[in-house]
Structure formats: structure tokens, C-alpha cells
């Protein structure tokens, strides 16, 4: 057994050596390893994005060939989706926080948790190995028949994604079981922190949707290697069937990306307003309903390829997702009412999230409308929309979460000034890159274009210049966070005055999270009646 007898040692110091990390069963160490991996993946995906935008500075080729450009955007998409956004909040922050926030010593299945990490690393190797064996140029969606006939190494990449899927499924199973069986006494379902509700809903999607992606990619590999004809029009198969299969996972996957972000935002807004969340029950219920409705709307990615009847049904159902998302937005704003608002960095990220998610959400409504979708589908409008949701939503919330729990995870404080500067740069840079893409897209600029009409150049150039501001912001974050690790002052157990269970633990937490058994007696954000730990 890795765990030592003395449980009151901080988990960093409990044991040492690379084996004590790579084969640990401690959910906190696994969470940190995920965190490091996904930050590396994000850096790589970000570099690809910068290179792409650099190429698009000019309407004619400047840096890369068409093939290289296509491989760049494919890998940018695949890395950001499968290696960064999907595992970002659930696997990294969730792994670290979920057991602590429900007062458990660990996940229900620690070995399974470690296995998920190892599977994730294995899958990443396969995905990245495709870089060295011919690249992959299908776009992250792997649409047939192009993916079947391209001469690049589609099999290697899809195999990587297939393996990564199992990491996601096992994490999901572990999360659900842990929330069901490992809560401390008094922590009823209606007292769960909203992040836990969000992670729980996410896990449901991970378990029920990811296997469909796995079998779809398996079929793609079988199709490519053996030519069984299921997606091959020449053999009577149907390429649109692949799109159905792919989006049956990949649309719910969008909610794997955004739901945990919403959870993080709920945690931040309550703590920095010292307020109970407005409408707890409807917030929890909206997470679950987003997860469920999310399964029924995959066809809205296919309005230009499927039957008009199916399009109509999917468009109708799509609008139902906007209702719970809207409720969340309004409730966050209502939570601020008569609070005691502390404008620290995590709260700034909350405000940035609110703004960007609003734009992402409204443009989602635009795209849900059938007639407008026909015009905007596969243009930069879509590109801008999903970046507003995934970067403006998830990545901003992820950064907010990192800043919020950084003292808890590392036991160190970071520079508040630099953090605010970086937050501002990221917000500014992000809007520079993507706001202009809405205009471009609505005028008809198609996505995945290596060269484009000269008339779009000013807008493309402006967008590209934004990537430099955005990149600078991210680099700044890395710098002051590393500085905080080396020179930061010791963090107290509860620097922000949070009320949820993780703030009762030490910073950083001890080996099995708490020295003494915990008990919950109040609602998670009941500031009026609950007492702030270590206050």
C-alpha cells in the first residue's frame, strides 16, 4: 500500500520519486498529472493555432503548403478537443477536487482512476505519433469518405482518440459511483456543491455517449483497413451515417466541455459575492437537463446534409438547450445582487465568462435557426461561435478555476496584479481574434480555407494580430504561476472565505484529505448560517 500510516502529511511530501507519482493511487497526484499533461497539450494546440493564423495573414500561401495547413488545423482541433478541453475541468480539476468536496478519502475506484490516466497518456502518444508517420488531414471530425481515402495516417489518430475515449468513460464511471457512495454524512443530494452536480451530469454524458464515438472510430478504422463498405458510397454505404454516429457523441461532448465550466463559475460567484447561489435547485436541475437534452440535438450539425424533417426536429430540440443555459446565466447575475463582491482574479474570470458565454450562447441561437444555419454552416461564423463557447466559456472558466483553487492545490499564492493583467490580455486578445470572425462568416467566408478571397484580408489580419495578444496573456499566466510555485507566499487554508468542504482541508491537503471525519450540516453556500472554515 502506497499510503503511509501517518495521514496528516501534505500529499506532496508523503512520498517521493517518479514511481510515487506515476503509480500513485492518490486522486490529488493523479489530478496534478492530468493538469500538467493537459497544459502541455494546450500549449501544443495553441502553437498550432498561432501558426494557422500566421498563414492566414495573407490570402495566398506564405508559410505552409496546403497539405501542411490542413494537417495543422486537424491537429489543432483534435488536440484541443480530445487532449485539452474534454479532460480539462473534469479530469484535472475534477480529479483533484471531487473527493475533497464531498469529504471522501478518495474515489470509489482509485486503481481505475490511475488506469484512466495511463490510458489517457497512451492515447495521447498515439494521437501525437500521427505527426511523425504522415500526419492527418481530415479535420477533427474525420468525415467519410475523405478520411477513408486520404493518404495520411488516419488510423493512427483515430486509434489514439479511440483509446482516449476509454479514459473518459472510466473517469465518468468513477465520478458517478463516487458521488453516489462516498459522500460524508449530512451531505445530501440537495447539499452538493454545484460543481459536483456539473461533474456528475458530465459523467453521465461521458459514460453514455463516449462508447458511440469509440465504435464509430472503430468502424472507420475497419472501413479504412478492410473496406467493409458501411460508410463507402461506392459499396452502397452511406457517408452521412458516419456523421450521425460521430455527432451522437460529439454533440453531447460539447456539454462535457461546457457543463463543468458552468460548475466552476457557480463556485466562484458564490465565494466572491459571499452569497448563497440564487435558485440552487434549478441550477442543479439545469445541469442534469442540459446533459439529457444534449443527447437529442446532434443533428443540428447536419442541417445541410440530412433530411428536412430531421433538420426541423433537431432544430426544435436544439432550442430547448438554450433555456437551462439561459437560466444559469440569469441566476449568476442575480447571485451578485446585494452581495459583498470581492473583485479578485477568479471573479474577473467570472465576469469575462459571463460576457463571452453570452455571445457564444446568442450566436448559438442564431445557428439553431434553420434558415440562418443554412447560410452560416461551415463558415467562420460557426468557428467564432464554438470558440466563444469553448475558449470564452470553458477555457476562461478553467483559468478561473485554476486561480481559485491554486492556493488549495499548491499551497502558494500567486501575484494578484499580474494575474489581473493576464486576465485582461486574454479577454482582449480573445475578442480580437474571434469577434471579427462573426462578421467574416456572415459574409460567407468558409472555414478550413487555406487561401481566401483578397477582400477578406483586413479582417483575417486583424484576427491574426489578436492571437499574439492572446498568446502573450497565456505565456504571462505560465510565468507568474511558475513564479508562485518557486517564490509565492504560503497560502492559508481558506484564502477566499469559501464555504464548501475543500476549504476545510489544509492547503495543500493532507494525504487522505482531512485529518478528522467531516460532517455537513448546511446547504453548500449558506453563508448566513454556515460558518466559514478557518475564518
Amino acid at each position, binding site marked *: 500500500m502506497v499510503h503511509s500510516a501517518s495521514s496528516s502529511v501534505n500529499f506532496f511530501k508523503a512520498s517521493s520519486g517518479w514511481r510515487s507519482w506515476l503509480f500513485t493511487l492518490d486522486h490529488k497526484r493523479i489530478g496534478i498529472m492530468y493538469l500538467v499533461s493537459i497544459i502541455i497539450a494546450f500549449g501544443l494546440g495553441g502553437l498550432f493555432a498561432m501558426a494557422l493564423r500566421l498563414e492566414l495573414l495573407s490570402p495566398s500561401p506564405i508559410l505552409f503548403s496546403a497539405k501542411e495547413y490542413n494537417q495543422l488545423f486537424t491537429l489543432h482541433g483534435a488536440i484541443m478537443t480530445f487532449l485539452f478541453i474534454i479532460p480539462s475541468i473534469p479530469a484535472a480539476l475534477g480529479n483533484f477536487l471531487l473527493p475533497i468536496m464531498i469529504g471522501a478519502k478518495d474515489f470509489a475506484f482509485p486503481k481505475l482512476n490511475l488506469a484512466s490516466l495511463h490510458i489517457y497518456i497512451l492515447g495521447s502518444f498515439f494521437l501525437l505519433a500521427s505527426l511523425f508517420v504522415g500526419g492527418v488531414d481530415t479535420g477533427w471530425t474525420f468525415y467519410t469518405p475523405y478520411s477513408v481515402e486520404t493518404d495520411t495516417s488516419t488510423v493512427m489518430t483515430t486509434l489514439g482518440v479511440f483509446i482516449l475515449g476509454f479514459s473518459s468513460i472510466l473517469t465518468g464511471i468513477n465520478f458517478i459511483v463516487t458521488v*453516489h457512495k462516498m459522500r460524508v454524512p449530512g451531505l445530501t443530494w440537495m447539499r452538493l456543491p454545484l460543481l459536483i452536480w456539473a461533474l456528475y451530469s458530465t459523467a453521465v454524458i461521458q459514460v*453514455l455517449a463516449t462508447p*458511440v464515438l469509440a465504435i464509430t472510430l472503430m468502424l472507420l478504422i475497419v472501413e479504412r483497413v478492410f473496406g467493409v463498405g458501411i460508410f463507402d458510397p461506392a459499396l452502397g454505404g*452511406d457517408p*452521412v*451515417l458516419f456523421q*450521425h454516429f460521430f455527432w*451522437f457523441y460529439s454533440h453531447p461532448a460539447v456539454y462535457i466541455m461546457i457543463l463543468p465550466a458552468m460548475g466552476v463559475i457557480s463556485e466562484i460567484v458564490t465565494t466572491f459575492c459571499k452569497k448563497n447561489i440564487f435558485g440552487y435547485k434549478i441550477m442543479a436541475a439545469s445541469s442534469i437537463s442540459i446533459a439529457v437534452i444534449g*443527447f*437529442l440535438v446532434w*443533428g443540428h450539425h447536419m442541417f445541410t446534409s*440530412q*433530411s*428536412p*424533417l*430531421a433538420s426541423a*426536429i*433537431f432544430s426544435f430540440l436544439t432550442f430547448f438547450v438554450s433555456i437551462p443555459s439561459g437560466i444559469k446565466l440569469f441566476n449568476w447575475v442575480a447571485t451578485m445582487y446585494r452581495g459583498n463582491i470581492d473583485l479578485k482574479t477568479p471573479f474577473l474570470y467570472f465576469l469575462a465568462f459571463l460576457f463571452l458565454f453570452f455571445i457564444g450562447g446568442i450566436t448559438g441561437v442564431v445557428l439553431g435557426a434553420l434558415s440562418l444555419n443554412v447560410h452560416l454552416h461551415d463558415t467562420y461564423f460557426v468557428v467564432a461561435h464554438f470558440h466563444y463557447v469553448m475558449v470564452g466559456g470553458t477555457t476562461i472558466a478553467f483559468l478561473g478555476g485554476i486561480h481559485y483553487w491554486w492556493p488549495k492545490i499548491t499551497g502558494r499564492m500567486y501575484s494578484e496584479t499580474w494575474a489581473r493583467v493576464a486576465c485582461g490580455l486574454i479577454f482582449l486578445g480573445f475578442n480580437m481574434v474571434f469577434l471579427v470572425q462573426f462578421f467574416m462568416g456572415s459574409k460567407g467566408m468558409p472555414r478550413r480555407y487555406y487561401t481566401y478571397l483578397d477582400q477578406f484580408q483586413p479582417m483575417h489580419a486583424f484576427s491574426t494580430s489578436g492571437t499574439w495578444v492572446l498568446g502573450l496573456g497565456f505565456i504571462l499566466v505560465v510565468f507568474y504561476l511558475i513564479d508562485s510555485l518557486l517564490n509565492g507566499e504560503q497560502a492559508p487554508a481558506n484564502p477566499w472565505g469559501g464555504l464548501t468542504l475543500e476549504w476545510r482541508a489544509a492547503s495543500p491537503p493532507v494525504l487522505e484529505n482531512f485529518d478528522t471525519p467531516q460532517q455537513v450540516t448546511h446547504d453548500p453556500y449558506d453563508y448566513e448560517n454556515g460558518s466559514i472554515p478557518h475564518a
Partner: protein
Amino acid sequence: MASSHHIVPVKALIGTFIALLGLTAVTVLVTFIDLGPALNLVLALLIAGIKASLVLFVFMALRWDSGYNVLIVLSSFLFIALFAVFVIADFAFRDSIDPIEKQTFGLESPVKPLSEAHPYNAH
């Protein structure tokens, strides 16, 4: 929480086993009665559904298990059903409105011919 250890009575197991074998025979028999392809398929799926429920509820002891586990199984079957229905519906209604104008949703093209003697009225 009550422990979910439940020992299924052996009689129930044997009964289920016999019922499963019997239903298998029924499935084969109904194939040889021609009820039209749709009804045959529905019947085959219905019998398979009963057999699957027997296995689920008795052999897998779902009947005595917690409600949550029942929910997991039911929701996965529900999602599979929706998956199948939507995809097949898409294939069934492909291009259904393009050739027809007035019959579908009472729609009429907003475009009116400039004159009755239209040069391209050939079709």
C-alpha cells in the same frame, strides 16, 4: 441504505431459464408465419425485449436492485431507441419535400412565374 445483496430463489432462476428457452422457440415459430415484414419485425423485437427483460430482472437481479441501477439500464435503452429512431427517420424522409411543392406543409414557393407562357415551362 439496505444492503443490495439479494439471493434470488433458485426456483425463479429455473423458471426463467425455461421461459427463455420457450420464448426462443416462439421466436423461431413466428418467423414461419408471414404477418408482413413490419409486424414480423415488431413481434421479433417484442419477444427479444421480453427475453432481455427476463435476463435483466431475474438473472441480473435488477428486480431486487436499487432504483438507480434500473434507471441506468432504462436510460441507456431509451437513448439507443432515440438514436435509432432519429437516424432511421432521417433516412426515411430524405429529400421528401424537394420535388413536391404544395403538399408539404402547405408551402408554396414564394416565386411566381412572370407570365403563364414561361419559356422554361418544359418540365
